[in-house]
C-alpha cells in the first residue's frame, strides 16, 4: 500500500469556481471580455462600493428632515445629490421603517440588490430559503434574524422583480439626539438597510 501524503498535492477548486474560470477563459479567448476589465469590476465591488455608502445616506436622512423628505419622495434623484447612482441603482425607492410599518427587501426571482448603496448582496440574500420564505412568512424569518415584529406592525416585503431597487431607511435609535452624522453613520448596519435587523444605540464614542 502506497502511503499518499496530503502535502504533495492541492485540492482542485470547487466545480462552480472551475466552471466560472472555464467560461471566463473562453470569453477572453474569443475576445468578448477584456481580462483587465474583469479585474477592475471586481476591484470596484470589493473595495469601492458597499454598505458604508448606504449608511451615509441614512445618517444624512436622520439629520436633515428636508433631505429625508426628498429621499422618500424620489430616491433616485436624492441619491444623485450625494453623487450616488449607477449600475443596479438606476431607479431607487427608499422605504421608511416606522412604528407602524417594517419594510424588508428580497428578490424572489434571482438576487437583485441595490449595488450603489449596499454593494454586492450577502450570500444568504441569494439563498433559495430566504427568497422563498421571506414573502410567505416574513415574521418567522425576521425572528430567525433576531428581529421580533409586534403583531400590530405591518410587514411590507418588497420583491425586486423588475428594474426598481429598494433600500430600507431604518428607524433612528432612541438616545441619539444631538449625535453628529459621523456618529450616526457608524451605527448603521447593512442588515438594517435590507430590513432584517433593527438598530440600537450604543454609547456615543
Amino acid at each position: 500500500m502506497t502511503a499518499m501524503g496530503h502535502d504533495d498535492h492541492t485540492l482542485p477548486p470547487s466545480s462552480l469556481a472551475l466552471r466560472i474560470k472555464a467560461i471566463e477563459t473562453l470569453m477572453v479567448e474569443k475576445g468578448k471580455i477584456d481580462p483587465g476589465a474583469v479585474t477592475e469590476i471586481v476591484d470596484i465591488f470589493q473595495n469601492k462600493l458597499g454598505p458604508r455608502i448606504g449608511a451615509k445616506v441614512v445618517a444624512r436622512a436622520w439629520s436633515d428632515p428636508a433631505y429625508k423628505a426628498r429621499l422618500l419622495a424620489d430616491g433616485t434623484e436624492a441619491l444623485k445629490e450625494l453623487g450616488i447612482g449607477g449600475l443596479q441603482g438606476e431607479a431607487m425607492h427608499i422605504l421608511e421603517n416606522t412604528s407602524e410599518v417594517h419594510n424588508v427587501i428580497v428578490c424572489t426571482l434571482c438576487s437583485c440588490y441595490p449595488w450603489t448603496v449596499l454593494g454586492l448582496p450577502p450570500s444568504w440574500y441569494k439563498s433559495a430559503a430566504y427568497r422563498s420564505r421571506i414573502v410567505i412568512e416574513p415574521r418567522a424569518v425576521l425572528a430567525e434574524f433576531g428581529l421580533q415584529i409586534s403583531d400590530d406592525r405591518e410587514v411590507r416585503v418588497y420583491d425586486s422583480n423588475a428594474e426598481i431597487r429598494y433600500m430600507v431607511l431604518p428607524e433612528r435609535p432612541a438616545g441619539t439626539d444631538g449625535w453628529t452624522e459621523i456618529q450616526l453613520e457608524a451605527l448603521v448596519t447593512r442588515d438594517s438597510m435590507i430590513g432584517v435587523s433593527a438598530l440600537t444605540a450604543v454609547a456615543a464614542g
Partner: protein
Amino acid sequence: MLPKDMVAVAVATGAPSLRPVETSPRFQVGETIRTINDTFATHTRLPGYARDKPGTIVGYEGAHVFADAHAAGQGECPDHLYCVRFDSKSLWGKGSDGSGAVYLSLWESYLLAGDDQ
C-alpha cells in the same frame, strides 16, 4: 467589448431601463387589479406566487424596457410599470403570518382591471 478604462464609467452610469412611450398608463394609483393567470415557459418577471391574484396599484414607475420581450430577443418593447401591493392574506390565505403585504413591480400586460375579475 468593454475595455478596462471604461469600466468605472459603465458602473457609474448603469443601464437605465426607463423609456419614453406614446401611450398613457391604463391604471391609476388606488385602482384594484387582478394579475393574469398565464404561465410562461420563457423569461418573465411575474413571479408564480403572484399569478391570478388581486392587488392594488400604489405607484407608477414610468415605462420600462419589458424584460419578457427583451429576453426573448424581440427588442425593448417598453411598457408602463406599476408598483402593486398584494395583501398577505390574499397571497397566502391561512398561511399568512400576520398583517403585511408584498410589493411587486408589474408591467401593464400582467394586469387586468379589477372589474375583469
